[in-house]
Each structure stands twice: as C-alpha cells, then as structure tokens.
C-alpha cells in the first residue's frame, strides 16, 4: 500500500475496528425499529438506552438529558434555533464569537435575517474569548450565549467554565459546540455550567452521521425536527441504532483512554511544533500554546499559499488541511485566522495538522522533512519572497 499519513483528524477520524464490531449486529441481524413493541425491537431499544446512559455518564449528565442527532451541525442548529424560537418573547439577542464553526455562525446569520440581534465577540491573538467580554455583551434581552469549547482550526480551548459561570449567574442559556473537544479533553457539564452541548461521533473514532445534543433538564428550547415521538418527542426520526451504538462505544473508549492519549498526543504535537518553528524560517504558530487541543498544530508559513502546500504534501501521502481561500471556496482565507488578527497574505499560508493517538514522532519527522522541502520550493517560486529577500538582503 502507498504511504498514507493522515493528519486531518479534525476533519474526521478513522472508525475504530472495535467500534465497528459493536455496530455490526445492528447493521446485520437486528434491523428493527427500536420504537416498536415486539421483543426483537426491544433489544435494539435497550442498545439505544444503554448508549444514552454511557454518554450521560461520561458528561456527568442524566440519561434524559442526552438527545441523539445526526451530528454536530444539527446539534448547533437545534440548540440555537430552538432557543431563539422558544425564548423570543423574552428577547432576541444572542452572544457568540467570531471564530465559531459555520454551523453556529451561519445559523446566527440566519436568525439575524429573522429579526434577531447577534453580538459576535472578538477574540485575542491566540483565539481566546474573554469571559469579561461575554459579561459586558449581556443585555436584558439576551437569551443565549453560544461559545465553542475548542476551535476546530487553531485548537484553542476556550475558558468555558468562566463563561458558563457568567451565563448561569445571569440566568442565560449557555450552549457550547464541543465537536472538537468531546472525546479529546475532559468535559463535565455540571462543573462547567453548560446547558447545551453539541458533539459528533466521527470526530472521536465513531461513525459519521450521528451525534448528540446535551440539553440540561429544565432548559426549554423549541424543536428542530418535527415528526415522530422519538427522543421524548423533541427530535423526530427513526433512531440510527448502529450509529448510536457506535458513538457510545467510541465515546467509552475515548473516555477510558483519554488521559493516556492526551499525554501521548501532546508530546508528539509539541515535538513537531518545536521542530517546525526551529527549522523553518518565517513560520508562526496559530492558537494558544497552552490552552490547546492535544492534537492540533496550526502554523502559518509566510510568502506561500496553502493549497499549493497541500497538493505537494498529498503527493507524498500526507493528508493535511489549510485555511487558505483556495480551500474555502471563497476569496477570503479562514475567518478564524483573520479574527486572530492575521493579515490576509499570511492567513493564506496556513497549514493545519491534526494528529490522532496513533501518530508517532517518526510520522512527524517524515512530514516535517517534506514540509521543509515544500516550503523551500514554493518560496523559490514566490514573488512575495523574491521581494522580501531583495528588501532584506542577508
């Protein structure tokens, strides 16, 4: 087989074989609809409830606070639109940040078109939302605060506990998009004062097309998917039994191995960051050095453009990602990189490498060696570098 080094685990992760094994009975033998009455279906129903219980346990939540969804985007849409829908009598103001995932940002923009007002908080140069800025943005008509747990591009982990305390103190519903965090770093909804939390299974070695929304008991939001009486009549649609079972299995493994994986990933991550910053000139790390997802590396290389870099790395079997315009389908580079204050031309040269617990130092050595060759070659072709060298002779 050709060499493949997969460093795009923030995009999606490999399904663990032991997770697939747990799913197989519900893909093959037991195809029943768990809402049916006969015992064949009740077996599937039990599997769904066991999965709910497992996930609730990991979050420090109650079983009835876990609602299965199709994934992170649905969770974000449901939490935000649902809160806006049910609380519009109380107010129409929402607080979020400029670096949210588009599932949050575009949902908020949609609500603005429906007459809601949204405050998009700035972040600092490391991508951190200041709890003080959250508190200052609160108005009498604020109905929801939605701040992501950890950023998908630059890996910055937000001060969720402080923000949760502020929300709770003011009696405002607090949602967090934890798609990049759940299964990777400890998340306890009570300790962090979280009212709603979206997560997605395929980000932690579970299957695609399944996720959950944690919704604190007593927190009232409207329904997004209308129909059958599934999920306590709050989210319709026949249960994705293999998906739910797979998600719970993946979450359980992630919780069990979390401490070990954090230590391992952090070590490989820091080794790679240090090597790149030491060996490649005109490179900068994006995101907070300390409050950072254990598997995230995001570096900007000046004078070059990200897509070219990705194609060259792909030719060496390396899967990575970039925040350049060419990878976003628009003319602007990533909104996250712009929000942390990077000029456009530097933001275009970003490279994101997201590791898994399987990634080794040897993998990173191979990758870094190729990054160096790639950068050197692209710089030799870059008119920006040519101008820079002429202005700054060695």
């Amino acid at each position, binding site marked *: 087989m050709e060499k493949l080094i997969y460093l795009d685990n923030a995009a999606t992760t490999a399904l663990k074989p032991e997770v697939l094994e747990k799913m197989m009975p519900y893909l093959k033998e037991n195809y029943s609809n768990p809402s049916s009455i006969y015992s064949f279906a009740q077996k599937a129903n039990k599997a769904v409830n066991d999965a709910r219980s497992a996930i609730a346990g990991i979050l420090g939540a109650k079983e009835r606070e876990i609602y299965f969804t199709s994934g992170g985007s649905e969770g974000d849409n449901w939490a935000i639109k649902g809160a806006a829908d049910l609380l519009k009598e109380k107010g129409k103001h929402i607080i979020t940040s400029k670096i949210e995932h588009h599932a949050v940002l575009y949902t908020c923009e949609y609500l603005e078109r429906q007459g809601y007002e949204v405050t998009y908080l700035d972040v600092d140069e490391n991508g951190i939302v200041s709890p003080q800025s959250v508190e200052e943005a609160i108005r009498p008509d604020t109905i929801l605060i939605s701040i992501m747990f950890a950023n998908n591009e630059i890996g910055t982990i937000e001060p969720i506990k402080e923000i949760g305390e502020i929300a709770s103190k003011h009696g405002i519903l607090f949602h967090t998009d934890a798609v990049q965090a759940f299964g990777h770093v400890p998340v306890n909804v009570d300790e962090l004062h979280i009212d709603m939390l979206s997560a997605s299974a395929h980000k932690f070695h579970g299957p695609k097309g399944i996720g959950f929304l944690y919704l604190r008991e007593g927190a009232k939001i409207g329904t997004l998917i209308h129909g059958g009486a599934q999920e306590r009549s709050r989210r319709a649609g026949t249960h994705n039994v293999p998906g739910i079972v797979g998600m719970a299995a993946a979450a359980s493994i992630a919780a069990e191995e979390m401490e070990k994986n954090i230590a391992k990933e952090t070590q490989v991550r820091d080794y790679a960051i240090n090597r790149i910053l030491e060996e490649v000139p005109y490179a900068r790390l994006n995101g907070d050095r300390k409050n950072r997802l254990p598997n995230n590396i995001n570096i900007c290389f000046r*004078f070059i453009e990200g897509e070219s870099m990705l194609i060259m790395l792909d030719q060496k079997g390396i899967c990575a990602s970039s925040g350049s315009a*060419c990878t976003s389908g628009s003319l602007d580079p990533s909104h996250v990189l712009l929000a942390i204050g990077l000029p*456009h031309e530097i933001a*275009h040269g970003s490279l994101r490498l997201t590791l898994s617990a399987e990634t080794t130092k040897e993998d990173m050595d191979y990758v870094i060696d190729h990054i160096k060759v790639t950068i050197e070659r692209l710089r030799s*072709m*870059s*008119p920006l570098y*040519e101008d820079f060298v002429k202005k700054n002779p060695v």
Partner: protein
Amino acid sequence: MYSEKVMDHFSNPRNVGEIEDASGVGTVGNAKCGDIMRIYLDVDEETKVIKDCKFKTFGCGAAVATSSMATELVMGKTIYEALEVTNKAVMEALDGLPPVKVHCSLLAEEAIHAALWDYAQKNHIVIEGLEPPKADIGDE
C-alpha cells in the same frame, strides 16, 4: 479536481525564475486574495519575438499551473501575437480548470498583458488592443 496537465504543470512548472534586466515585467493580483503572478519577458529588439519568458507565482495549484502554461504559450511569439494568448487559450491548453479556478487563468492573461504593457511603455511603442494592467501589486 485538477486535470493531469494542471498537475503536471504544478509539479514540474516550466520557466520558473527571474530575468535580469528583463525587457518587460508584469505583476498582477494581490496577496489579499491569495494570488500574485509576476511574468518576465526578454524581447528581441529587432524581431519583437519573445526569446525568453519566466514567472514567479504566489498562489494555489491552478495559479502555478496557469502561469507555467502561459509562459510556454507566449515563448517564441511576437509581442503582437502574445496578446492573443487569452485566458481561454491557457485553460484549453491545460485541459480545463475547475470553475472556482477560472480566475487564475484570467490572472495569467493579465500578467502577460502587464508585462507587455511594461515593455511597450519602456520602448515607447503601442501594441494595438493592449490595455493598461488592471491590477498591480502596488494597489495594496
């Protein structure tokens, strides 16, 4: 997403580099949008034939490939013939580009025009049909 020709011109770009004391240099695009192309021409004073053409590009795979192809297409042509190397010609020679990358071929056309314009200005000649370059690195 890219044709084999685009990948070939990206992986093995033709005519990368600079020409010292070039007869004409054109730089178009801006770093803000993520694409800058610079084309150097060496034009024979008598025959007006482009003897050499080099480029440097900051940009995506398509930007590099279109620059490379554009230099190949203008090489050996007179400055008047070079004007006929349109973005369409560059795209066709590359067996097409994805729709979101069409602007790269436009940029390549503009880079050639900018270099020709620079040549015309320096030599006080008029190339019929040639308009002043639309965008320049100096726009920023």
